[in-house]
C-alpha cells in the first residue's frame, strides 16, 4: 500500500478548513499537542501540519488565483528519514506513511532541512519535530464507520478538493483521478518521489457574450468626439 492524498487545485476555495480540522484532530491525537505561541497576542504562531498558501498564476486578463494546501507528501525517497540520526523519523513499509517517534526525537531540525516541502515543524514546548501523520490514528480505527476512516482534512473539505487513497492500486479512485486529470507531484526534479499528487486548474471554456450592439449615427459621433477630446 502507498497511502496519500490528491489535492484538486481547480476546486480548492482556500477556506483553510482542512488546516483547522487537522489541528483539531491531531492536537489530541497520537502526536499532540500542537503548541500555539501567543495565540491571542501580537505575534500569533504555532505548529500546523497543513498550510494553505495562495498564488496568482499568469497575468491580467488571464490571471487566476490558485489556493494551495500543502502537507507532508509521504515521499517514496524521503530524505527526512535517511538523514535522521536518532531513528525517530521513519517510513512505514506497510503503507508508506512517514512518521516521527516522539520518544526518540532530539529536536536537531536536520529532517526539516532535508524536506523541500516545509512539512516538518518543531514544537518548541516538547522540543520535538512534528508532522502530518495522514491521521494514522483514524484511518485504521475499527470503531469508526468505514466512510469516516479517512484523514480529518479530507472529511472536512467542503469543496471536495481532497481525496485519500492507495496509489499502489491502479484502480483506486485516487489513481484513476490522477490519470484522468493529469495529476502531478511538486518539485519532481529533486527526486523525492512524493506520494501526494496535485490536480491542475481546469482550462475553462471562454464564456460567450453577445456582440456589442451598434449604436447608430449618434453613438458614432459621440465616440469620435471622445477620441478627439484630450482629458
Amino acid at each position, binding site marked *: 500500500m502507498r497511502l496519500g492524498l490528491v489535492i484538486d487545485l481547480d476546486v480548492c476555495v482556500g477556506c*483553510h478548513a482542512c488546516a483547522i480540522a487537522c489541528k483539531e484532530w491531531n492536537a489530541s491525537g497520537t502526536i499532540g499537542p500542537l503548541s500555539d505561541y*501567543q495565540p491571542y497576542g501580537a*505575534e*500569533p*504562531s504555532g*505548529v*500546523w501540519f497543513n*498550510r*494553505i*498558501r*495562495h*498564488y*496568482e*498564476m*499568469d*497575468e491580467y486578463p488571464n490571471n487566476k*488565483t*490558485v489556493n*494551495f494546501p500543502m502537507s507532508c507528501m509521504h515521499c517514496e525517497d524521503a*530524505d527526512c*528519514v*535517511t*538523514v*535522521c*540520526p*536518532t*531513528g*525517530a523519523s521513519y517510513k512505514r513499509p506497510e503503507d508508506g506513511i512517514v512518521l516521527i517517534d516522539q*520518544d*526518540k*526525537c*532530539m*529536536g*536537531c*531540525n*536536520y529532517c*526539516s*532541512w*532535508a524536506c*523541500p*516541502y*516545509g512539512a516538518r*515543524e*518543531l514544537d*518548541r514546548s*516538547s*522540543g*520535538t519535530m512534528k508532522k502530518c501523520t495522514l491521521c494514522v490514528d483514524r484511518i485504521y480505527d475499527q470503531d469508526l464507520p468505514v466512510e469516516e476512516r479517512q484523514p480529518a482534512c479530507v472529511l472536512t473539505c467542503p469543496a471536495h478538493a481532497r481525496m485519500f487513497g492507495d496509489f499502489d492500486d491502479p484502480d483506486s479512485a485516487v489513481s484513476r483521478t490522477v490519470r484522468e486529470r493529469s495529476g*502531478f*507531484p*511538486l*518539485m*519532481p*526534479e*529533486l*527526486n*523525492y518521489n512524493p506520494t501526494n499528487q*496535485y490536480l*491542475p*486548474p481546469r482550462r475553462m471554456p471562454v464564456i460567450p457574450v453577445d456582440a456589442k450592439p451598434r449604436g447608430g449615427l449618434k453613438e458614432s459621433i459621440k465616440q469620435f468626439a471622445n477620441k478627439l477630446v484630450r482629458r
Partner: protein
Amino acid sequence: MHPAFSVIFFTVASGAGFGLFSLLFLADFFKLGGGFSQDQLVAGGLIAMGLVVFGLLSSTFHLANPKNAWRAFSRFRTSWLSREGVFAMVFMPLALIYLGSIMFDASQWLRVISGFLTAVLAWITVFSTGMIYACLKTIRQWNTPLVPANYLALGYASGSLLLLLGAVVAGLDTTPYIAMSALIVSIAAVLKAIYYFWIHSPGLSPTINTATGLTRAKVKLLDTGHTHGTFLTQEFGFQIARQKAGLLKVVVFVLGFALPGLMLVWVFNQQGGQTAAIIAALAGLAGAAVERWLFFAEARHVVNLYHGAQRC
C-alpha cells in the same frame, strides 16, 4: 538559513581541534623542526581534544530535546550527522591511546599506529561534518563537493596555525611549520574562492513554477496563509543583503587568509615572534567563524519558493 551560533562555534572549534591533532601527529612522526618534547606533545594533544569536546558540547545547545542526544549514534548507515558523532566518539579513545603511548614511552609501533589511525579518523570526522550539509538536495549552495573540501581545508588551516603557535612557543625551528601553514592556508583560500564563484551563478535550481507545478505561466505569491512567522520562516527565512555578503567575503579573505599569511612572513623573518603567531592563529579562527556564519546566511532553502521567492 538561520545561522545558529552554537553550530558555528562547534564546526569552527572541532574543525581546528581535529586539524591540530592530525598535524600534531605528522609533526611528531617526521620530527618537524627538531620535534616537540613528550610533554609538549601531550599538552598540544589535550588542547586539540579540548577544542573538539567543547565543540561537541556546544553543538548539543542547539538541540531542542537534548535528553535524546545519545540516540544520535544509532543511524550510522544512512545519516551523516550520526556518522560524524560515531567517528568523533571513536576518535576520542584512539587519541587518548596515542597521547598515553607518548606519555608512558610505549613501544614505537603503538605510538605510530594509534597516531596514524587518530589522524585518519580526524580527517573522516571533519569530512562527515561537511557532508551533513553537502548531502542536502534542498539547498543548492550546500549541495556541492566543495563544501566538505572547504570544511577540511579550513579546519586544517586553523589547526596548522595553532600548531605553528605551539612550535614558536616551544622554540622549535619554525621553517617546516611555516611552510605547512602557508600551503594549507593557500589551499583553503583557493577552495573558498572557487566556492564563492560557484554559488554566485544561479545554476540549475527549482523555481516557484516547479515548486507549485504551475509551469506554463508566471506564478506569484498572493498570501502566505499565516498571520505571523512560522517555524519555516524562522528557520529558513533568514536573508542577507548581497552587499553585506560581499563585504563579509572580503572580511573572510583578509582575516582568514591574508592576515595569517602576512604573520607567517613575519614569523619567518624573526619579527614579532610569539605575538605574530598568536595573531595568525586568532585571525585564522576568527576568519573561519565569519566564513561559517556566511555559509549559513547565504544558503537558500527551497521552501522559500512557497513563501514567494521566484528561485533559490
